[in-house]
């Protein structure tokens, strides 16, 4: 149901709905995922993992394992000791742990054997001697000053900012105290967001081959072949030119396959040691420990608002439970503060955060990366303010939207903001105002909003090279091959690439061959993360296609004796714009162009504009443009038990311009599903007992880790709002992550509207609602002091470093 169809007049593919280029192959079971690969003489590898959350490795003995029939090779961390990590500042992972293990599930040794079963059995032959260390399992424990305990024993990494505080951030934009002084209403609150995981249906899997030419080829289910390529070059101590990384079709990523991983390093080494291809596929339990999912975040928020609803001051203090490794954690930490400012103007903003190392699986980027947690807090907070001000929650938001072409208080550039239109769409369709105030006990309507970036302004390792490259080759037969490092993880990036080139060259998508995600064949694209692909590869594809279009039209112009500017490419033909003359086939025109210019090929690239500020930390948050989303949720909640169901979601998303309408709606619905599943039930939780097995995952299976089934999903009504952003290809923005953000607060606000209980934490479970209902009935507050409010009660008392003061853009 997109708007502004006039804009699309004259476009053949953009904005329409067409099948994914790889859709039928997937439906026929022909798509080859990493674990579907079977190469001649292939070996199978398994890794031995630590049963202890924190321990020194005293010795590892592989002797017996190597004697087992069928075992071909075995290795420890000493065979591949160079550390790696996705961020240059957190090179803290080892292919196999060398001196110590930092979590249950940390791998210490690996075996390659003739089949998986033999490799698994051989793990039992490996003898590891550990010296147990005290473990740190909670944010509170991680914040303890190391002087209180024994520094060498509880510190998980020595490179941390301090003790087990991996990263601390303190930034102040404008003057927060002035802001609070100007406020008519001030609220100070605590929120908590439990960690959860991606749960892709495909487990991670990788296959490596060491060729006779000495080169290594790695096929892996990864979202970021380029970053894996870099990490492999470092760890294997080989020139990158001797390594080829191919991302196989990814059976679900959601951010969980965005880091370089241990099993990827290990299969390469084992392939080199044995001279045979080696495959390693993680079990489901191993996937739960590999994780990199949503950080648990404990938040303290203080906000000041004028009677008209404008925000005079906002102060966020966040603690992130990072788990045992850095991963993207430094970026995640900044992201818990960066994007609160891009929806509603905030006059003064202070953001303080600490990421804490704990002896649990490492957290990292999951869909929304660091922003769903503070967004949940902010949108619930606005619901409470609306009540204070006796305003409709939609009205409060609509009065205060960041205008187009503006700078936020933290120096982010907002080019277009479709949030107002999104809010109007969902509130009108759901009759939000009437339903909210008019429905009976147990029926509730809630509104949530959000915003996300269409690609980060900076790459993971800072440089000024393009973020995405596209190469196009045109065959004499009219076939067009498009090469790009971008990685289709199911979001449809291959289809976007094909659609854009088809649009530019006026040909059928079926005539386009897409070659992607292969470091030998394709130009660099940084990967499928940060919702960057449509915008960045899209712009690079346009950049590559237009010079070819000009060449073809110029050659046709010479033959047809018609000025090139009067010709166009459309329907696989060269046509005159005024409709005169006979169309010439694309194939003929291509041959004329090859005759005139030689081989037809071109390259295009895209580098995002430098839109951000200049302060330390300004690298996280800038984006070419921001998407906006709004959601109204309808719930029915039993006022006795707290058991609830979600009846319907109304979603609106500012997509800028849909490249493929059906795929965009699919992304919106998929995001809404994932948000709803984490709002209602998903939790990555561990035993926290001081005794072993503290740090053991409580639910490392798809049965016990609950997620929504087809029966649980409500109807979703989706509206696309198109703001035609000047930075996006044809005006496009992202769709893969932003639409997740409004779901969690919409559910929390709907539950409050239904039964009067405030659940200030995620997931919002019936047990928690029941707790609040009991308080409402008895009139006695629970631990949180507010009757009918369930959520965190305590916030650690710790002094943050002095904030870096940054002038707000207006001052």
């Amino acid at each position, binding site marked *: 149901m997109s708007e502004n169809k006039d804009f699309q007049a004259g476009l053949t593919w953009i904005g329409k709905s067409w099948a994914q280029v790889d859709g039928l192959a997937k*439906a*026929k079971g022909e798509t080859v995922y990493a674990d579907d690969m*079977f190469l001649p003489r292939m070996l199978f590898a398994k890794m031995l993992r630590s049963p202890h959350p924190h321990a020194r490795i005293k010795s590892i003995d592989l002797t017996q394992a190597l004697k087992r029939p069928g075992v071909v090779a075995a290795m420890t961390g000493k065979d591949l000791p160079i550390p790696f990590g996705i961020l240059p500042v957190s090179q803290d992972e080892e292919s196999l742990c060398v001196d110590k293990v930092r979590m249950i599930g940390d791998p210490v040794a690996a075996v390659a054997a003739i089949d998986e079963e033999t490799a698994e059995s051989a793990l039992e032959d490996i003898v590891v001697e550990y010296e147990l260390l005290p473990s740190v399992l909670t944010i509170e424990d991680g914040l303890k000053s190391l002087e209180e305990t024994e520094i060498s024993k509880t510190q998980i990494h020595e490179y941390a900012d301090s003790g087990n505080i991996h990263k601390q951030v303190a930034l102040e934009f404008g003057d927060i105290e002035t802001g609070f002084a100007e406020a008519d209403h001030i609220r100070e609150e605590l929120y908590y967001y439990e960690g959860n995981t991606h749960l892709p249906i495909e487990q991670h899997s990788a296959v490596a081959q060491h060729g006779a030419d000495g080169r290594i080829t790695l096929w892996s289910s990864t979202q970021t072949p380029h970053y894996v390529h870099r990490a492999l070059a470092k760890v294997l101590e080989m020139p990158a030119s001797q390594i080829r990384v191919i991302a196989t079709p990814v059976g*679900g990523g959601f951010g969980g396959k965005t880091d370089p991983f241990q099993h990827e390093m290990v299969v390469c080494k084992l392939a080199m040691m044995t001279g045979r291809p080696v495959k390693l596929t993680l079990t489901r339990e191993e996937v739960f420990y590999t994780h990199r999912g949503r950080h648990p975040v404990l938040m303290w928020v203080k906000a000041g608002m004028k009677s008209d609803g404008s925000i005079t001051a906002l102060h966020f203090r966040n603690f992130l439970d990072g788990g045992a490794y850095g991963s993207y954690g430094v970026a995640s930490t900044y992201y818990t503060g960066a994007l609160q400012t891009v929806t509603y103007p905030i006059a003064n903003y202070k953001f303080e955060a600490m990421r804490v190392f704990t002896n649990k699986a490492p957290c990292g980027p999951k869909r929304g990366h660091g922003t769903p947690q503070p967004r949940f807090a902010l949108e619930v907070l606005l619901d409470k303010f609306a009540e204070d001000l006796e305003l409709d929650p939609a009205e409060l938001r609509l009065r205060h939207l960041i205008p187009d072409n503006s700078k936020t208080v933290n120096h982010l550039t907002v080019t277009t903001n479709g949030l107002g239109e999104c809010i109007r769409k969902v509130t009108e369709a759901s009759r939000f105002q009437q339903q909210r105030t008019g429905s009976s006990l147990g029926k509730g309507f809630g509104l949530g909003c959000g915003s996300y970036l269409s690609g980060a302004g900076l790459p993971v390792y800072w440089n000024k090279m393009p973020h995405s490259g596209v190469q196009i080759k045109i065959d004499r037969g009219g076939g067009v091959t498009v090469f790009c490092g971008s990685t289709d993880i199911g979001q449809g990036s291959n289809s976007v690439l094909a659609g854009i080139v088809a649009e530019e060259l006026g040909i059928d998508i079926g005539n386009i061959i897409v070659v992607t995600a292969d470091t030998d064949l394709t130009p660099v694209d940084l990967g499928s993360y940060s919702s960057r692909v449509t915008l960045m590869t899209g712009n690079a594809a346009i950049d590559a296609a237009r010079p070819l279009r000009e060449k073809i039209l110029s050659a046709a112009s010479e033959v047809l004796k018609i000025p090139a500017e009067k010709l166009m490419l459309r329907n696989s033909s060269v046509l005159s714009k005024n409709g005169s003359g006979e169309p010439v086939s694309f194939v003929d025109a291509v041959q004329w162009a090859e005759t005139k210019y030689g081989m037809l090929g071109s390259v295009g690239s895209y580098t995002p504009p430098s839109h951000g500020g200049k302060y330390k930390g300004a690298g996280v948050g800038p984006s070419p443009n921001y998407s906006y989303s709004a959601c109204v949720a309808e719930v029915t909640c039993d006022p006795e038990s707290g058991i609830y169901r979600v009846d319907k979601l109304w979603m609106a998303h500012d997509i800028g311009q849909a490249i493929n309408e059906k795929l965009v709606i*699919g992304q919106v*619905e*998929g995001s809404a599903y994932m948000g709803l599943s984490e709002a209602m039930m998903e939790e990555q939780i561990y035993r926290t007992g001081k005794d072993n097995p503290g740090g053991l995952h409580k639910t490392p299976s798809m049965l016990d880790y609950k997620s929504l089934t087809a029966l649980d999903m409500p109807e979703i009504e989706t509206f696309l709002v198109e703001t035609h952003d000047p930075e996006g290809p044809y005006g496009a923005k992202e769709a893969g992550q932003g639409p997740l953000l409004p779901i969690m607060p919409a559910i929390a606000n709907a539950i409050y509207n239904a039964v009067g209980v405030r659940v200030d934490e995620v997931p919002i479970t019936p047990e928690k609602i029941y707790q609040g209902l009991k308080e409402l009935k008895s009139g006695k507050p629970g631990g949180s002091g507010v009757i009918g409010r369930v959520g965190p009660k305590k916030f650690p008392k710790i002094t943050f470093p002095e904030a870096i003061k940054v002038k707000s853009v207006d001052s």
Partner: protein
Amino acid sequence: MKQLLTLKINGETHEVWTSTHKTLLEVLREDLYLTGTKHGCELGECGACSVLIDGEPVLACLILPVEVQGQEIQTIEGLAKNGVPHPLQTAFAEQGASQCGYCSPAMLMTAKALLEINSNPDSNTIREALSGTLCRCTGYSKIIEAVEQAAGELAVMRQNS
């Protein structure tokens, strides 16, 4: 210990000399290279390995092949006939019901079993039938729409035949 199995898969008879404890999933994928059938847990939780045994959807990771000798095993590789995709397959492609595509073979085989016993299921019936297979990409709605579309197309095909 190994044994000789005779399995009838997609109308073809296969003889496989393989370990007795291997699951049907392992035999399909690792011995016969029918890798269209996927796995997400190998514990009977995610539904990704669903195949049809005498038309009934079952989890291949929980079945020993010796149990199904002599029965008709259907996998995703047998859904298209003579190179022509089944209407469910074209509907999945057209509706965008496959995003990452990893659960698609299981969803398709389960949907095929449903449509064979109920040619015109309502959306709740489809949801119930597919509820044993998890999908993390789509939110299920496009999958339900694709099954509805295929049901309609199959009805037309029946009328015309």
